[in-house]
């Protein structure tokens, strides 16, 4: 047995990363190979190395060799299977794949653009790209050319058999493939070209094999056995009738790829289920007439010495001033920055911390990395782009000194080892928050320019099937009629049944579907299986990798859907596993707000604010936060946050850090919110699950709230090493974590038992840890967010005009519609001026301490035209509507919208009079009549009522600077005994109250057991109402659809948090269609 195992190695296998052509995860292939005693196995996915990292890691764990390869599609759709024997050939293979993927296609538009001025790309961005980015073929459209093979093919091992190879295709067509064979032989080199023979008990294939053997003999080429593996055994023996392997899943994937059903697929499916990894003995038996083909497989495997361990990735070097080393220069920069941060003289603690960190950085040889990140931050600073580090980098004083982060790690006593530790020996993770939109894109393009087109790339994001999409696709493939597909998919949406099949079956039964029907059973089982597979590759939201040399020598690149972007074929976890450095450049709307607001504050209040030097612990700010007066404030503006703030009563920065972290699914599901709040209010004692946890949990009153605490808990109670704790952290943030977490749980329990922690205490600790599996928040991250929360609260509190102007200019972001923001601004004493063509700019501005709405809020007005108004007005003021129309050349629709919004009131025209005039003015600037005032025939149009004006404001701009809609209804509401939101504060707990308002938020969170939450706004503020599940179902249509609602119920007041437990509702029909839609959450 040992001899056959040594002799046969599977060289041709495809994983699910050959998207829709393989049904096995790389790990499954490796596990099976290891179980069968294979010493090595190769993986060659279609047109990429997508699965290689996972394959490599699994193989490393299983103690077998993982050979890297790819199956490349040629222009005639035939395929060549290539293996990389060494590092140089691996690099060539990677570059070859990149060449096929990044081959620009010449478009008419591009050739036209040559020699013309730059008008920006498709998205209308003009500032980011120096020239239009090239266009590439669509996904799956890239094909390898013979030129690519000739450039990069030398030394690669090529298997040229199998039904899809160009050689086989020629044989099947009756053509002579010898010339092609000679060409391939010249490309790869003699001894590197093999004819692989496959035996799947198929007569046609056997006929082909005979021809291939004759050809190999004629061309003096070696033959090799292979099995073209593309699925794996299913593991358990399912009762679903799908057989003992994943062939059924492969058939389903094939149908999805071909957009057909199983009944319609016919012979597009494989003829039998022989394409799985067979025991070496079985392969030897199949090829007993050709022992040399078996022997060749192990000879090739022996030649392939390359594994991903030898990637040769190197982080780029930072160009240093003469006489400096990376370490010395980092020290210089750190101390220069430290003096800016902490003043000229540093206290001992700070100095000690800096020295400690610099020492570790030097020992880990990471100074270059810090310099590169510093360089990016420097670019942002030079270009007035706000940047702030988050994630574990916020634990570092050096990062703070360098301006990478804005959290004072010394003052906050954050754990530096969470960021960098000698024991872990891995690269640190620095995430930079940038203003969303063009500013972030500028930074990304800077990295492309700085490190070259092939020196920087975005990381990929592997997209898996979600339950609903999986059910939809599989049900279609199984031939369910469209209505039933829809019904099944809807049932699946309600429940994630990944871990518990029985419940889904119960749900199907509730939905009137007989779950015992064989096809439904198959659907359930196939859906379960498919969800572990990758569906396609997306682009990670902000992860970038950079390398000293071309990245495409490390990992293939391919175009992203977004123009000007390229992505690597691996996701961020794969990169981290292989030691490839990733920098996350994340877009954050609030950063854009701050970036917009600070210059406004400087200009209009004469105060130069710095994020890092905001007055700390400002009592006014905390008073505002305690009142839950947080509309627009980063991270703490949601209904749930607002309901917590008055209980939490944050009084210092760390309270805000806790506040940011506590309203998360992790703490909510882990039932940590109420214990913390009760302990904080002194209603319950501070206790610890075990005395050894006190030092760790003291800051959070014995309740674990942060990832760091959970890691330390694991280390203390279960004796986890730093590395194991790190594995736990990774499992927490990792999508594929369920199984890993359960393995780790076992280890935790064993460790705790050793320390005498068993029973309820152990359960409590385990529950704390597992509820963070998906949604835990690290303390440093919470601190970075809390800083932004504090900054935004500070601005709102002290510079509301500038803050709201910035919010309105950066919309869409946050929780609330601009109409709510405007009314909140007014409640904070800000005069909000309406849009006026003689004053308004495109963006909102500050005008004599008042906020002037910008033209961007006129619905349907294009930015280009809005900017034209600014320019034309800069030349000379507008005299009249006719003058305005002639000089701005706006469309009739845009002029109408302006008039309807009252933007021409400066010309002394009521809205309808303006509309009447607009209708008669000449709009063509070239016309003889351009600018000529129309005849002043007096219209018989009625003037607008106040309510009509409000409605017109909503329709034309989505908001109003005039009276709130509810103001118009107030007299009737008072008569009906309806209170305003402000009056509710004076009402007592338990009192039956009535309130009416515009519905601005509807929410039915998964964690709230079916309760429905409404936020209503009137002219005095906002109020919340809670609806029980029963009532919600009874009034579902009304509650889901009404724009203005009347609510009656019992007022509940606790710890200053107020809500109406609603019992009766009614729709108020007013200004239908004009009111902005509420922000609805599921």
């Amino acid at each position: 047995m040992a001899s056959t195992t040594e002799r046969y190695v599977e060289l041709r296998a495809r994983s699910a990363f050959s998207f829709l052509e393989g049904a096995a995860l790389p790990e499954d292939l490796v596990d099976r190979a290891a179980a069968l005693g294979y010493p090595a196995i190769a993986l060659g996915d279609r047109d990429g190395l997508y699965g290689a990292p996972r394959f490599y890691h699994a193989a490393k764990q299983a103690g077998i060799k993982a050979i890297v390869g790819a199956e490349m599609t040629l222009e005639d759709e035939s395929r060549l299977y290539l293996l990389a024997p060494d590092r140089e050939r691996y690099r060539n293979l990677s570059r070859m794949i990149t060449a096929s993927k990044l081959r620009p296609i010449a478009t008419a538009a591009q050739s036209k653009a040559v020699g013309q001025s730059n008008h920006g790309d498709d998205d209308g961005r003009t500032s980011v790209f120096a020239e239009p980015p090239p266009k590439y073929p669509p996904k799956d459209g890239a094909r390898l050319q013979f030129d690519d093979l000739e450039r990069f093919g030398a030394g690669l091992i090529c298997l040229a058999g199998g039904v899809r190879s160009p050689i086989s295709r020629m044989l099947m067509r009756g053509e002579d493939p010898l010339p092609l064979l000679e060409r391939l032989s010249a490309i790869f080199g003699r001894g590197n070209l093999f004819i692989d023979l496959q035996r799947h008990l198929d007569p046609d294939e056997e006929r082909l094999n005979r021809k291939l053997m004759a050809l190999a003999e004629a061309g003096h080429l070696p033959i090799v056995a292979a099995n073209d593996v593309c699925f794996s055994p299913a593991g358990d023996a399912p009762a679903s009738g799908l057989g003992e392997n994943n062939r059924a899943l492969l058939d389903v994937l094939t149908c999805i790829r071909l957009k057909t059903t199983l009944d319609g697929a016919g012979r597009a499916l494989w003829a039998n289920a022989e394409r799985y990894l067979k025991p070496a003995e079985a392969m030897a038996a199949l090829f007993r007439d050709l022992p040399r083909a078996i022997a060749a497989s192990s000879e090739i495997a022996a030649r392939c010495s390359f594994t991903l361990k030898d990637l040769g990735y190197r982080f780029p070097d930072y160009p240093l001033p003469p006489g400096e080393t990376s370490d010395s220069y980092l020290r210089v920069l750190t101390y220069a920055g430290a003096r800016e941060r902490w003043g000229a003289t540093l206290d001992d603690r700070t100095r000690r911390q800096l020295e400690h960190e610099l020492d570790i950085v030097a020992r880990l040889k990471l100074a270059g990395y810090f310099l590169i990140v510093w360089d990016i931050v420097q670019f942002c600073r030079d270009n007035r782009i706000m940047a702030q580090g988050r994630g574990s980098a916020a634990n570092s004083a050096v990062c703070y000194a360098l301006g990478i982060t804005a959290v004072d790690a010394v003052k906050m006593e954050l754990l530096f080892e969470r960021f960098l530790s000698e024991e872990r020996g891995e690269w640190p993770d620095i995430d930079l928050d940038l203003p969303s939109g063009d500013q972030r894109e500028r930074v990304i393009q800077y990295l492309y320019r700085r490190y070259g087109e092939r020196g920087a790339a975005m990381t990929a994001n592997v997209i898996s099937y979600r339950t609903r999409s999986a059910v939809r696709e599989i049900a279609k493939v199984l031939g369910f009629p469209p209505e039933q597909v829809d019904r099944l998919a809807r049932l699946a949406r309600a429940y994630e049944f990944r871990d518990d099949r029985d419940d889904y079956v119960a749900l199907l039964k509730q939905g009137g579907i007989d779950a015992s029907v064989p096809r439904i059973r198959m659907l359930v089982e196939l859906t379960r299986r498919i969800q572990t597979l990758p569906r396609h590759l997306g682009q990670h939201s902000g992860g970038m990798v950079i390398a000293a040399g071309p990245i495409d020598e490390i990992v293939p690149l391919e175009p992203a859907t977004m123009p000007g972007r390229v992505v690597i074929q691996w996701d961020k976890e794969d990169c981290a596993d292989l030691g490839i450095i990733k920098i996350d450049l994340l877009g954050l709307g609030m950063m854009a707000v701050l970036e917009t607001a600070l210059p406004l504050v400087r200009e209009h209040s004469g105060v130069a604010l710095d994020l890092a030097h905001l007055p700390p612990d400002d009592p006014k700010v905390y008073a505002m936060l305690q009142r839950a007066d947080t509309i627009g404030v980063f991270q703490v503006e949601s209904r749930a946050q607002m309901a917590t703030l008055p209980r939490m009563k944050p009084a210092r920065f760390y309270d805000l850090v806790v506040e940011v972290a506590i309203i998360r699914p992790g703490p909510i599901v882990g039932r940590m919110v109420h214990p913390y709040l009760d302990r904080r209010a002194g209603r319950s004692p501070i206790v610890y699950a075990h005395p050894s946890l006190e030092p760790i949990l003291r800051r959070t009153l014995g309740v674990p709230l942060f990832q760091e605490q959970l890691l330390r808990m694991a280390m203390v109670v279960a004796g986890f090493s730093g590395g194991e704790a790190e594995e736990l952290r990774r499992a927490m943030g990792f999508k594929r974590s369920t199984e890993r977490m359960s393995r780790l749980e076992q280890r935790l329990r064993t460790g705790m038992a050793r320390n005498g922690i068993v029973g309820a205490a152990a359960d409590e600790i385990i529950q704390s840890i597992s509820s963070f599996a998906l949604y835990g928040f690290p303390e440093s991250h919470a601190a970075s967010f809390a800083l932004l929360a504090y900054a935004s609260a500070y601005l709102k509190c002290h510079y509301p005009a500038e803050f709201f102007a910035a919010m309105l200019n950066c919309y869409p972001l946050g929780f609330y519609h601009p109409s709510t923001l405007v009314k909140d601004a007014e409640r904070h004493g800000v005069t909000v001026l309406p849009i006026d063509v003689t004053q308004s700019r495109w963006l909102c501005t500050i005008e004599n301490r008042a906020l002037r709405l910008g033209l961007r809020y006129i619905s349907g007005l294009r930015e280009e035209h809005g900017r034209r108004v600014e320019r034309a007005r800069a030349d000379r003021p507008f005299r009249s509507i006719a003058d305005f129309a002639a000089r701005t050349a706006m469309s009739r629709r845009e002029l109408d919208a302006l008039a309807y919004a009252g933007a021409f009131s400066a010309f002394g025209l009521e809205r309808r009079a303006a509309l009447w005039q607009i209708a008669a003015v000449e709009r063509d600037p070239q016309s003889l009549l351009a600018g000529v005032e129309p005849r002043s025939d007096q219209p018989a149009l009625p003037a607008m009522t106040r309510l009509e004006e409000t409605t017109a404001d909503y329709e034309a701009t989505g908001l109003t600077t005039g009276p709130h809609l509810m103001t118009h209804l107030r007299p009737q509401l008072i008569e009906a005994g309806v209170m305003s939101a402000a009056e509710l504060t004076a009402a007592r707990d338990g009192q039956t109250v009535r309130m009416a308002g515009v519905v601005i938020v509807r929410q039915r969170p998964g964690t709230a057991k079916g309760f429905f939450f409404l936020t209503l706004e009137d002219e005095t503020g906002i109020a919340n109402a809670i609806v029980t599940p029963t009532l919600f179902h009874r009034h579902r249509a009304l509650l889901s659809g009404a724009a203005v609602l009347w609510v009656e119920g019992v007022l509940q007041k606790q710890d200053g948090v107020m809500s109406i437990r609603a019992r009766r509702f009614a729709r108020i029909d007013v200004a239908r269609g004009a009111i902005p839609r509420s922000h609805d959450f599921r």
Partner: protein
Amino acid sequence: MGRIACILIPDLPIAALLRSNPELRERPVALCANPAPHAEVIAISREALAAGVRVPMTAAQARAIAPDILIVRRSPEAERSAFEALLDVSESISPLVEPGMPDRAWLDFDGLARLYNHSEAIDPDRPASESGAEAAIANELKRRAHRVGLETTVGVGASKEIAYLAARCGGVRVIDHGREREFLDWIPIEMLDLAGKPGGDLELVLARWGIRRLGDLARLDPRAVASRLGTEGLELIRLARGERLAPFVPRRRTESIGETVELEYGIENLEPLTFLIRPLLERAIERLAIRGLVAGDLTLDFGLADRSRDQRRVTVASATNEIRALLTLITLSIEATPPAAAVEAIALGVEARSPRPAQAGLFTPPTPAPGRLETTLARLAALCGPDQVGMLRAQDSWRPEAVHLMPFDAPPSFTADAEPSPGGNVTRLMIRAIRPAEEVEVMCDRGAPEFVRGRSIAARVVTLAGPWRRDGEWWNGAGGGFARDYYDLALSDGAVYRAYRDRRTHRWFVDGIYD
């Protein structure tokens, strides 16, 4: 000034659906253009409206709000037939009707009052005033529409527009002569349905001007409006002032070729029924023939003794005027599914088609005459059932005997395979399939067949090739699917057989002989 009536089916798509599916009348129903969950709802029933569903929600949203709602695909056929019924009703009252696709018709009411005032069909107790008489006729129109399953509204006025707007007001509304402005002044602008028309932002412009009713519009200076809103605006003003008169253009509907006979007694037997149908058919064919047309599909509408109807369509694959062939098809149809009760009335409809001259190819084999072929197929269908007649086509499957039934068509011509298959240039062996496969007993040595014994075979295996493994159709459940190992066996009797072992039952079969 003449008098025009407008009969209107409000919310035609829903009305048409409920007309053809009366059982849905109490249910919340929504219509979509397609069954996709993101398709927008285009019409809803009153019950759906009450449940909170609105147009244009998506089907998914509608389901979320009203879980028991029935989402149905819009049916243009049902709408067309509702419209046809509307025209029938209109023509039953007035000889001059102008169809207004898709949901309305105008009728010339001029003088009709005098005509119907003397008719007993109209309530004789009502006063004989002209408007009273018009209202009575309009009510009769509405009643008749109700009889054919349509809920309508009727308006009567001096022009088409006024009549239409009056109909839009609901029920029956007669606008007396001289009171048109009074009526129009009150009409909201939305009633004009300007949104979907060319220059569709007129409605928005007028709304922004604060013009809510036609009366507001009528008071504006036409020249000032014309300079701002162009011709459309001017036309609107004329309409608002009751000045606009679109001409009334009555049109004859497309003549349908139909013949009917009503009997004084019920017929229960086929032979006399055929005897009665024959002259109807002859007359219809004659009418077609003089216009140079031929008969396509036939419709038969039998009025039965139990007051029910038996409506059927007889498909004619090849349009023809051959009475015998057509009569045979009708006979076969009745034979296959006889009417449930005695027939008391017969309505025959014939679809007119243009004859298609065909030239047979010189080198193609002669095909049966279309009429005879159709007759034969119909006979077979009557004999064996319609699902049992057709032609078998090999199915795209790895299971060699897989076939499916197709409608009978001309035999396929031989074409070369477009896609090469492995070993495609090898000379192919022909195999004679054995259907059903013959079960045999096979003696094996270490898994390899050695001797085959069956009903007609008993021979030693001389040489073999295989096994060739085929399995699939796992999705057909435990009883379905197949898993076989095929062998090509050269036996000592000199023949080469294709045999397989069912891997689930371990039984052996021979399913072909190589020629």
